């Protein structure tokens, strides 16, 4: 094998190692968007255009407004809390990695009462939408995106 190929092989291995995702010991960036969906108008907030294109394929709502957006930088098993309208709060906790997915414990409370709990395996750099709570003339949607490093 020529010297040139040896150098090339070394560079290839180096680049592969650098670019391979490493999740161990990392932090998780969780982005929570609280969206108010209704049929009041045909308005879609500019920051929601990407998310809404998918939601529109399954929901009949025509208006999507961003009520709150919160970025959480979390360690594993560190709970993050987002205040929701109607005396509700959303607790989101990344607990571990399973393959290329982040395991999240998600809890919605109304006052001090837990009304909804779920455990999901969220694809890294992807999101899940939880919806349903009635709000004003429409409903609330919670878009939770997780990104582990």
């Amino acid at each position, binding site marked *: 094998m020529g010297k040139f190929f040896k150098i090339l092989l070394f560079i290839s291995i180096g680049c592969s190692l650098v*670019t391979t995702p490493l999740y161990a010991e990392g932090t998780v960036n969780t982005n929570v968007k609280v969206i108010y969906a209704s049929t009041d108008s045909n308005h879609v907030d500019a920051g929601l255009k990407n998310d809404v294109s*998918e939601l529109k394929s*399954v929901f009949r709502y025509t208006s999507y407004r961003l009520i709150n957006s919160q970025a959480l930088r979390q360690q594993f098993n560190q709970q993050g809390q987002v205040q929701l309208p109607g005396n509700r709060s959303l607790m989101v906790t990344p607990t571990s990695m399973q393959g290329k997915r982040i395991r999240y414990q998600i809890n919605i409370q109304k006052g001090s009462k837990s009304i909804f709990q779920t455990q999901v395996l969220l694809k890294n750099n992807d999101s899940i*939408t939880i919806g349903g709570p009635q709000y004003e003339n429409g409903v609330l949607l919670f878009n939770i995106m997780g990104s582990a490093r």
Partner: protein
Amino acid sequence: MEQRCNTFSTEQISQFIDNELEQDLADALSAHLNECERCRQIADQYQALSNAFQAHVTHQVDKIDTTALTTALNKAEHRSGQRSWKDLFGRFGQNIYLKLSFFTAILVISLVSFQANWFKTTGPSAIVQSVDTSDASVMIFETQKEKHTIIWFTETS
């Protein structure tokens, strides 16, 4: 003044020497040369000239060294038989930076493609492992295009 023979022309005698004359005519001229002194002299002159020319050509050809040419031809034949990386590099000349750029470009493209395809997780955006609710009904579904997971719950109280 020497008398001239008109039986055969000088051109025909020259063709006879070069074996380019038709057989019946060649036979007739051959018989004529035994009888005609003048024509035989012309034929001898042509023969001498032809011999001298042939000797000169042979000498010149012998002076050509064909070894180098044969070696080059053999090498070319061998190369066409097996195309190697060296041939590919040859297209880039001797510029090492050009070669390095070429390989770096291929490497980057390969890595980007590898990252995009092999590290891409398939399936829905989220797998719901458990749902626990006391006062709500729950529905789980996903969008058709992006397989975006949606959990829908309706509070009953």
